């Protein structure tokens, strides 16, 4: 039985699954239900200065997949709409009752040192394990000079992080916004400011769709809408990419990462950990399915680790980082070609249609006497793009098989076809 416990920048947690700062961690009632369900930790919904934020009615919208399941989720909810006093009191009580679980408090304050100093002292007094600086909220708060408005300016990130480290002894996690061109810059700034860790990604500016009758985006507030923050399975690829950028940037390599973005099952979590995350945070999946999903997440991760012989999270943490590299370092002499397993082929012809219309015309179609078609690969035309494999609805029917070119590893920087190659 694999050991799922983690020590993330000094914050101990029985498993790497934390609930992200969001509606599920809004108050003691929810957080205690989450702990009961088995979550290793929570990041308490972002606290701000009193008076508390006020929310609008109609707050979420979603993007659905073919089966009607939520693939993307959008919200326009602000930070906590409860008073600081109530939140701090509940945090104190909850931490006392659940000492073995991680409890990190998310904070968002105006860029004034005294304000931060004051709140940090208050949070420290609750016994919370650490703070997460919300520099990422993309809706509502930036209009007030907070959230993503800070996260998008590396100098502000560094400055506020430094204040936090100066005025508290708690671990400081800086939550990064993806609404930026190069996520490495605020990550480097956080590190310079003394951050213990970064967490990413916060939500992405989004409009999930337009109601073509009302001619307005959703969620609709009295006929009008505003962009929200996007999360859920659809953002996972973006989150993984940004995580990898920070994990392999020489300036931030080794900086602890709490992975966030579309994590809904153990596999998603394992992927973030493989890219260097030391803990993972979940929100959308819990909002759609409830807190109990953590059971299958823990069980699944544990079973998979057992099957791989990983005894603890550190055993596989970051293993995919060295294999995530720059395009220019990929082997130009590597070749794969598609192969169709005729016994498995059901004759849908999607591979042919896709290759013929949009790729390299590398698939042949032969009509059979019984009216069915047989599809074949023209090796010489196949560039190994994987499109046919992707369109094929049958598992393992189309495989991309390696073909030896007899050539050694050679990257683009060494390739004679590259006019800008670096001569050895």
């Amino acid at each position, binding site marked *: 039985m694999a050991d799922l416990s983690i020590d993330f920048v000094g914050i101990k947690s029985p498993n790497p699954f934390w609930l992200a700062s969001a509606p599920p961690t809004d108050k003691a009632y929810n957080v205690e239900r989450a702990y009961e369900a088995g979550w290793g930790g929570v990041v308490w919904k972002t606290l701000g200065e009193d008076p508390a934020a006020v929310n609008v009615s109609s707050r979420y919208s979603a993007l659905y997949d073919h089966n009607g399941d939520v693939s993307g989720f959008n919200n326009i909810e602000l930070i906590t709409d409860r008073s600081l006093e109530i939140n701090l009191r509940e945090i104190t009580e909850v931490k006392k009752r659940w000492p073995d679980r991680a409890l990190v408090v998310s904070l968002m304050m105006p860029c004034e040192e005294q304000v931060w100093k004051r709140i940090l002292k208050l949070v420290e007094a609750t016994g919370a394990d650490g703070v997460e600086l919300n520099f990422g909220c993309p809706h509502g708060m930036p209009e007030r000079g907070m959230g993503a408005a800070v996260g998008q300016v590396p100098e502000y990130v560094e400055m506020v992080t430094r204040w936090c480290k100066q005025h508290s002894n708690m671990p400081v996690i800086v939550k990064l916004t993806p609404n930026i061109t190069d996520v490495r810059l605020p990550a480097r700034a956080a590190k310079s400011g003394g951050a213990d860790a970064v967490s990413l990604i916060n939500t992405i500016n989004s409009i999930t769709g337009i109601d073509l009758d009302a001619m307005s985006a959703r969620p609709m507030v009295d006929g009008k809408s505003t962009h929200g923050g996007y999360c859920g399975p659809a953002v996972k690829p973006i989150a993984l990419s940004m995580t990898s950028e920070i994990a392999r940037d020489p300036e931030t390599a080794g900086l602890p990462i709490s992975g966030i973005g579309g994590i809904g099952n153990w596999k998603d979590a394992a992927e973030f950990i493989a890219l260097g995350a030391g803990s993972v945070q979940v929100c959308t999946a819990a909002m759609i399915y409830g807190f109990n999903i953590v059971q299958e997440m823990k069980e699944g991760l544990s079973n998979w680790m057992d099957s791989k012989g990983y005894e603890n999270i550190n055993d596989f943490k970051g293993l995919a980082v060295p294999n995530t590299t720059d395009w220019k370092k990929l082997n130009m002499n590597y070749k794969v070609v598609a192969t169709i397993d005729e016994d498995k082929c059901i*004759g*849908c012809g*999607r591979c042919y249609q896709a290759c013929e219309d949009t790729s390299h015309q590398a698939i042949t*179609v032969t009509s059979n006497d019984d009216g069915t078609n047989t599809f074949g690969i023209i090796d010489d035309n196949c560039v190994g793009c994987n499109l046919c494999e992707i369109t094929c609805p049958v598992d393992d029917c189309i495989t991309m098989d390696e073909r030896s070119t007899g050539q050694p590893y050679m990257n683009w920087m060494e390739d004679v076809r590259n006019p800008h190659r670096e001569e050895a």
Partner: protein
Amino acid sequence: MNMDNSVNYSQQQLALNQMFKDINPALSARQAGIESSRCYYCYDAPCIKACPSKINIPSFIASIHADDLTGAAKTIYKENIMGGSCARVCPTEILCEQACVRNKEEEKAPVRIGLLQRHATDNAEFDGHPFERAASTGKRIAVVGAGPAGLSCAHRLSLLGNDVDVFEAEDKAGGLNEYGIAKYKLTENFAQKEVDFILSIGGITVHYETALGRDITLDKLKEDFDAVFLSIGLQDTSSLYLDNEDNEMVINSVDYIKELRQATDLKQLDIPKDSAVVIGAGNTAIDIACQLKRLGTEEVTLVYRRGEEQMSATKHEQQIAKNHQVRIKTWSQPESIDVDDNGKVTGMSFRKTYLEDGKLKGGDVQFDVACSAIFKAVGQKMAYPETEQLIPTISNGKIATFHNQLTSVDGVFAGGDCTGVGQDLTVEAVQQGKLAAIAINEQLNASITTPTTSTIAPINAALNKALSA
């Protein structure tokens, strides 16, 4: 099509409707959404090839998935104006759904194309008729018989700008959809709603209770019209050639189904209470057996002289019979109809059969089945009116057709069950009517004397214009 169900039914009608609820209920919007996502949008889609009317199935399913039911229904109606009834009565299990590639993958379940087609045609909303007629050609065509073939032909001819007169022997149009299909397959007066929908294109005049050989003659029609399409269906039933076959409780299934389909009150029907025997192995046999069970006949035994494999009713239909607790006896041939002294049917005697060198032989074992009524469903025949002077060539008891449904008589085309091409399916009749209409239109309006030999509907400018309207 407008599915307005605001009909006022009598209590008796409601009781009857309750008894004959839809055997294959419609999909909900949610179910249709999920089901439509299962279509792989195949290249050279096998389902289209398997559809006798060549509906672009992946296209209409994609439209359903994109919430465009109007587009989906138009795609269906473009090839098959009776897409609504075909969605209900087609044996999809041997047509499109059998061809679906998803049968071959591990899921082993085809996309439910029939139900999706029904979803589109039931729920699409049109402001009037979905298609606009092409400019008038000034040509007039006579269609004899307002069944699926005749209606399909008339509609396509009208669409192409021709005027059509349809002559129908009965007092309602629809043919077997109205009079012959099992009541649980076409519920809520669907056949008549579909007729109204088809006729709403305009340019079609239906003359009811006007029969060939009685009220009209082919000679005269040829004289009065530019072309004639014969879709007269089958009028006669096959015989068992047994004594007592003329007993009033030895009933032709098609006649009984016709009465049932028109009945508004159970009291109008003579329903065998305890037991009935059905002779036959086709879909009509299954239909009558199941409907008798629904009407309350305690025991229904369907008897066929060969095995299940040889039954022309599909496996799916056989299953429907089993679900209705119809007893199926195979390898048994009728020997006698047993009648008591008062002339009342008491049962039937059978002899077990077996195959020897491919020939059916009677064995030694005999058995009786007690029953108070016998329903014959051993096939139908064409009875071409004997009074007619001009008769197209008849082959194997049916009207012989050549390229694009042309008969031996110049300017006279035929389609549907009276031609004996295919398996007597509604969808085949619709296709034959459509192909004939296209051929007639070409012949009349493009001065082509020989219809094209292509089996693919020729595309002409008028057709395209009308369909893209």
